């Protein structure tokens, strides 16, 4: 009945804020314009807590907690930025850049890439740890889309959007550790996939240049992942 029971008051970086009980720290912080970096998170998709960039300090917690999956609690004291957290985030970002071949200058997503902008916002000007230079395939067998594994950050947004929104379950992950690869069906060429509906949602949600539309090469096309929340609302209304 009363909405008050569902409101939580917490402190974020010393500022007191209110949030709904079902909100995560990330949602509450963003509502109050507190910037927490994210990469695997995307509004409209389930959370996986995999990129570790949204880790925050919560007073009393033994470890850093991912803001994207941690629910707000009454009296919680959250620190989103500190020298230590910033150092960790920079190093995590360096690990992302070093593990595959992210060559921004010749990337189709140059200028519209979430990884690239994270480096900018986190102030990462170079990568201290050695680059791995793995040899990775590019699959351009689909008539409209291409997957370039050199740019993939394994955020699994494509996997999630394909299963949770489109319901096609074309995308999956094979291998483990550094050998992990996003694949279509049972590693068939994308163009041969029988489950793919060619809806292109995976391309729109991909944060980097790993998935792109062939027509966008050289044209600085921005992606539009913001359709997701609207799609969700429309579907819920439909069902109601």
């Amino acid at each position, binding site marked *: 009945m009363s909405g008050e029971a569902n409101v939580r008051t917490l402190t974020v970086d010393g500022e007191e804020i209110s949030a709904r009980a079902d909100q995560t720290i990330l949602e509450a912080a963003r509502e109050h314009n507190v910037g927490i970096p994210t990469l695997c998170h995307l509004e409209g998709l389930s959370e996986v*807590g995999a990129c570790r960039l949204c880790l925050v300090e919560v007073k009393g917690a033994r*470890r850093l907690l991912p803001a994207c999956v941690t629910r707000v609690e009454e009296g919680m004291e959250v620190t989103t930025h500190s020298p230590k957290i910033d150092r*960790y985030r920079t190093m995590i970002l360096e*690990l992302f850049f070093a593990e595959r071949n992210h060559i921004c200058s010749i990337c189709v997503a140059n200028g519209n890439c979430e990884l690239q902008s994270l480096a900018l916002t986190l102030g990462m000007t170079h990568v201290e740890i050695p680059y791995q230079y793995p040899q990775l395939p590019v699959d351009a067998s689909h008539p409209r889309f291409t997957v370039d594994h050199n740019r993939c950050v*394994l955020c699994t947004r494509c996997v999630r959007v394909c299963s949770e929104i489109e319901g096609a379950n074309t995308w999956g*992950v094979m291998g483990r550790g*550094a050998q992990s690869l996003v694949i279509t069906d049972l590693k068939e060429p994308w163009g041969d996939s029988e489950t793919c509906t060619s809806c292109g949602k995976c391309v729109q949600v991909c944060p980097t240049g790993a998935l792109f539309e062939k027509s966008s090469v050289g044209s600085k096309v921005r992606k539009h992942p913001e359709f997701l929340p609207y799609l969700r609302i429309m579907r819920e209304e439909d069902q109601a």
Partner: protein
Amino acid sequence: MNVEELQQIAGSAQEEREKFDYEVNVCMGTSCLSQHSDKIRDAIAKEASACGKSCHVRRTGCMGPCAAGPMVMIEPAETRYGHVREEDAKDIVAALGGEPVARLDPQLGSYFEGQNFVVLENVGHIDPEKIDEYIARGGYEALLKVLTEMSPGSVIEQISKSGLRGRGGGGYPTGLKWDTVAKVKGAQKYVICNGDEGDPGAFMDRSVLESDPQRVIEGMAIAAYAIGANKGYVYVRAEYPLAVQRLTVALREARRRGFLGNAICETTFNFDIDVRLGAGAFVCGEETALIASIEGKRGMPRPRPPYPAVSGLWGDPTLINNVETFANVAPIIRHGGEWFASMGTARSKGTKVFALTGKIQRTGLVEIPMGMTLRQIIFGIGGGVADGRKFKAVQTGGPSGGCMPEEHLDLSISYDALISAGSMMGSGGMIVMDDTSCMVSVARFFMEFCMTESCGKCVPCRAGTVQMFELLTKITKGEATHRDLDRLTELCEVVGATSLCGLGQTAPNPVLSTLRYFKHEYLAHIEEKRCPAGVCEFSATAADTRRGEVHV
């Protein structure tokens, strides 16, 4: 099944045993079986029937001293023979009732001194595939007592009182875990037994499942009653075919005797167990990854909370304990929580099974009371370092643990003491190293393990372990600088602090502990291009070529 029936089964099993003058127990655990102990058993049985001796030849699980295998033990005299071969059958049978065969003395010395068998109480005495032999040694008394005399609450009370902590490594209080799951509301709850033992050098859970599977089933049934579950899963590695086979037989036997199924022991309690095979991914020992694997998904961990106690298998409240934890339950119920709590230290109660391996005289499976010192285990039970070499370090806790040097030999084993020494209890692997082990190479070995076992979900573990592995490789090749060492230390901190699950969070531990106790070895590699243990090979030009100074 009621008390009378149980006693009757126990009685007739006992009578069966007493028909024979002698019992020859042949170890048929994986280790002895790999040396064809099945043929030894057949040979002894054939020889015994040929001589007309009244003798029962029994297959048993692991007897402990694996290095002396294949093992044979004669009851009632408890004579042990080691390194037995098929040809020895004749002499063994001939010696029954007389002087033991001297040349087959396994030279166990003080191997059993100070050991205290709770989990392994039946090991070497029963046929793991015969439920009645388990019952004859007090098996299922505890389950019957629980179902007929105790409330779920009082079962949890006994477990809490016992002070039992998770034997899988984390050491979370078992009673508290049970209590949490019991209190969560839910029509459907699950019990899962984690048998995804994957630490290098560890084989405790495998031995328990191979030797005494009924004990694990009984423990799980008691837990199910206590928390209100009706379905259980044993998640066991597919690489343990013998354990899987014996467990499958044991489940069938337990169903036949009415300890699993509907209306167990004529009560309203229903419970059954299925086996699920893991495909050898180390990360599936992590409880949320294990649950995902049982659900048929990719075995990857997810952030907690919600904990499995609240939302586990198929989103229902789930209790996950390790094989050894469940194996402790029946004795606790039989003898009471206080009995269990009387063993061990202030905060670590009972006993712990260790797989003692490495450069040690007597490799094997040991069960010691908590609080015993590392020295007692290594130099007493284990007989010291093999080949008369010098002790250097002991590694516990697998890839999540650490290496402890000689100064820590008098450390009393407990969860907390091991953590403060930079290692951890882990599931019970204990690897002894002598002066021929290079500690940088040891750290590199464990890092390689974590790197290949990382599931790839979160970047610190997926990419961080690769970077750390390469830095360690650089050190072992004599190509590293102080800057590399600093970077290694920093990566340790970041990967430990930011990884999603226990695998990544603890992956730096072998590096951190060797850096803590053996930093001089790292420095010798870096500054002097020298490996103190003589393991690493340096080529003078290697460093230059890599930096590009020489190019042909």
